[in-house]
């Protein structure tokens, strides 16, 4: 695996995105696009958009957890604050959707810089606890602040017209926009993982003292990946705010941070496509098992127990091991 990714990384410096990519990754990306293009005709478009948003969110966390080796338990802070800012910008300031999404993402990036620079000073469980504490701070801020609407959240957010042209009120128009945003986000994450920067990250994950001894300033790398991850989580949150036309406390609650960690673990931590699968499974369970009432949580629990007992590397992790190819 190491040699393959290294050559991929080297080939990268030369030219196009596609040239350095292993063939089966290109095939998967194309497959993803094909599935995503067909899905809204077979399934309910809003549901598929939700899956896409959470897939991006889980991939963002996976960038930090799977490749940086940093377990954040407060990623809802970036996801949720971005969704609040986007909702507020679109509803109260009357910004166009692209500007609203950008402002939400920018705020998430800013929070990533502030929280990340403090959190990366600690490692392991302490890092997780610091991020959880910051996540809770954002939750209480959202609960108290005037503009978030407290318990009610921000509702009836207008979807508006993209660039003043495309009317996003139609679910299908919005769907293609969301797909483009999410695909763009996934490509960025893929690019980061396979860049020289990504190689150094993996080195830090495997053995930080050795990376330091090689002359890398590891804290800068860690901060950079933290901010990148927070930004992508923010992009996912902003997009979700437009899809559902609301931002609420659920988005900043710690259970949201936990849910996205579960999506990543279930799909396969440290794989490229695992989080997408994990997000799809969890969101589908939330949605399609809703009529089972109290059984939802029980079924979820059983699935997690099975996942932990039988495939600890996650769905895609096991698949990758069987195929002997990094996925």
């Amino acid at each position, binding site marked *: 695996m190491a040699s393959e990714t290294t050559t991929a990384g080297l080939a990268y410096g030369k030219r196009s995105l596609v040239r350095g990519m292993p063939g089966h990754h290109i095939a998967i990306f194309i497959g993803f696009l094909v599935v995503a293009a067909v899905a809204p005709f077979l399934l309910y478009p809003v549901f598929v958009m939700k899956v896409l948003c959470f897939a991006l969110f889980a991939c963002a966390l996976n960038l930090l957890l799977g490749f940086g080796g940093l377990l954040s338990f407060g990623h809802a802070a970036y996801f949720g604050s971005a969704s609040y800012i986007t909702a507020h910008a679109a509803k109260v300031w009357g910004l166009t959707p692209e500007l609203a999404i950008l402002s939400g993402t920018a705020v998430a990036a800013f929070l990533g810089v502030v929280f990340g620079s403090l959190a990366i000073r600690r490692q392991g469980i302490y890092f997780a606890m610091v991020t959880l504490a910051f996540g809770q701070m954002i939750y209480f801020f959202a609960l108290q602040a005037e503009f978030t609407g407290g318990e009610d959240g921000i509702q009836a957010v207008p979807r508006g017209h993209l660039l003043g042209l495309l009317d996003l009120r139609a679910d299908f128009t919005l769907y293609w926009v969301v797909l483009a945003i999410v695909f763009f986000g996934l490509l960025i994450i893929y690019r980061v993982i396979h860049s020289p920067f990504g190689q150094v990250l993996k080195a830090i994950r495997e053995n930080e003292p050795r990376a330091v001894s090689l002359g890398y300033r590891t804290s800068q790398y860690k901060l950079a990946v933290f901010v990148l991850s927070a930004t992508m989580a923010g992009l996912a949150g902003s997009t979700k705010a437009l899809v559902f036309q609301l931002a*609420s406390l659920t988005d900043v609650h710690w259970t949201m941070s936990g849910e996205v960690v579960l999506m990543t673990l279930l799909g396969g931590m440290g794989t490229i496509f695992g989080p997408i699968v994990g997000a799809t499974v969890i969101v589908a369970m939330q949605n399609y098992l*809703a009529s089972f*009432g109290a059984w*939802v949580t029980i079924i979820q629990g059983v699935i997690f127990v099975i996942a932990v007992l039988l495939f600890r590397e996650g769905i895609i992790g096991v698949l990758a091991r069987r195929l002997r190819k990094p996925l």
Partner: protein
Amino acid sequence: MRKTVLLLGGLAASLMATSALAQDINIKMGVLNDRSGIYADLAGEGSVIAAQMAVEDFDAAGKGINVEILSADHQNKPDVASNIARQWVDDEGVNVILDVPTSSTALAVNEVTRNANALMLNSTGGTSELTGSACSPHTAHWTYDTWALAHGTGSAMVEQGFDKWFFLTADYAFGHALEQDTAAVVEAAGGEVVGTVRHPFPGQDFSSFLLQAQSSGAQVIGLANAGGDTVNAIKQAAEFGIVQQGQSLAGLLIFLTDVHALGLEAAQGLVLTEAFYWDLNDETREWSARFEELDGDKPTMVQAGVYSAVLHYLKAVEATGSTDADEVIAKMKEMPTEDPIFGEGYLREDGRKIHDMYLFRVKSPEESEGPWDYYEVLATIPAERAFRPLEEGNCPLVE
């Protein structure tokens, strides 16, 4: 002349169409509520049972109206609720969405049905925004709202002579709003607010706040919080013997199932406002006994509200012979309501269902004569004073 003929022809045609349609109308109802979390007891499966009872009592099948009832758990998450509601309306052709507890999910579904050919008949959601600035032509708010609870408890208690108040408030927007609303009512009725303390949300330890309330000299301690906070505060107040020492606790958002869970030992003396209690009169007793046979518990006011809402909806469908959301809601607002739950009432143009509310006091264990014998009626709040006046809600539908 030709116009009148056309008009008459049209009228006749529509009458015929009505009677023809009345033979075969298909309706889908979706009960969207919390079925696994903290509101599963007070709404949950009981709301589905209540909806089914209404369909059977109305004899819908005998009148050519086929009703299918769906249900789903929104897990108290507005995005899950919004997703399910959209899918129901767009894909499944659901005509009515029922129940929808918690303010955030209720407001989310309110936006879904606003522009769709579907109605939301909300029973468990509390926010008075639903008939205020967020009001929608496709929403009816059936059982209660926070305004009614705050005003009912506030004004009725002052009338009973309890005029010195102390507030124990959850420190977030909902708690603040509840406190401000109630304080305004207490003062308008001639009472006095002698103090306020804000506790963190969610709170675990209320002892210091309760001691403050105890030493404030207030006659009433108003609990401007909800759910677990209220339950914890009541339990701890019982440990301090607050009620035994002559002060009253006023719950501003508490349900029969909460009292059931607390037990009379802890909850005795609590004063609260509700729209319905099973032991009000012969009709409510008879209905509640049937409900209990199916559900195992006595109904809460919101489950009873689902029954009342479904019954009135079906009457409007029968009268119009249509399932068009605009036509049915217009008929629902035009016809007075009547059912064993709330007696006589009506649906106001902003979507607010109007009926009497009641001020209850929770009985002590000695006073209680059997299971579920929990409340004694202190006062009836007449319908015209129970809910927020139309012009104060700032509902855009009312011009």
